[in-house]
């Protein structure tokens, strides 16, 4: 199944959850927020939200700033 993650195309096996995707791309979850097709998916729903073909996933992280 094809997804876009932060602008990069990616192939994933079958339907996976948001939590599984994060594990697969080896991204730390602290301070992270995720939007799927411009809708923010709350952390409480990461285990249960399944990704679909063509989904545009964007990961954001809290970083240093003024």
């Amino acid at each position, binding site marked *: 199944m094809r997804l876009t*993650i*932060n602008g*990069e195309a990616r192939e994933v096996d079958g339907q996976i959850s948001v939590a599984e995707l994060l594990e697969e*791309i080896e*991204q*730390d979850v*602290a*301070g*992270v*927020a*995720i*939007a799927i097709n*411009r809708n*923010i998916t*709350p*952390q409480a729903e990461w285990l249960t939200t399944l990704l679909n073909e063509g989904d545009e996933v*964007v*990961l*954001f*992280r*809290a*970083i*240093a*700033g*003024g």
Partner: protein
Amino acid sequence: MLTIADKTFESRLFSGTGKFANPSLMADAILASGTQLVTMAMKRVDLNRRDDDILSPLIKAGVNLLPNTSGACTADEALFAARLAREALGTNWVKLEIHPDPKYLMPDPIETLKAAEQLVKDGFVVLPYIHADPVLAKRLEQVGCQAVMPLGAPIGSNKGLKTRDFLEIIIEQASVPVVVDAGVGAPSHAAEAMELGADAVLVNTAIAVSPQPVAMAQAFQQAVQAGRIAYEAGLGATSHQAVASSPLTAFLDEPA
């Protein structure tokens, strides 16, 4: 003690987390400053790189986190950034900052007011970053912002309180705390803001880019304390002409 929304602060110095040479130095400076509130930004993760972990040292330091919406050019973008930040950090506090022009980073008043109104409705504690416009400050207060953050001078300029006269008006008229944010380039600027009656100041660049950020953080802490004590003690009136400190007796004249 300073109260903003549901939080009280002993320190009236807030700090940014940007521009430090590394997270360890950032953490040391933040500790040295005594600050209890620091700002952060939200960014799209670069999947090919490991970002510096700055969140762990901040959580360890026990400071309150204030995510900003820096990067947003419109109210809609700011709303999106604020909601991301709330998810990412688990706080409903947000520093609303919308500055589309990259040269001067002046905050857009119209987008800011629009976004503030919606964010307050969405349950955020909104601290809007604005030019020192007394009318705008009042409008933001009226839509429910819990503080206002007028600038002293452009972000990172270190120019001090270029907006001094208007900060005075805002401070006089505000019913919410006033946090002077941006352009505070020296401890003397911070003290000046506190002497005017500001409730707090937010400093980032001046501490982070100093060759000795820890020492500079301490200096700012002391300046903010000094300024506040002076304000509460009551500053003397200014006068155009001299007012003698001792009686003007003619002690050198021969007795008649």
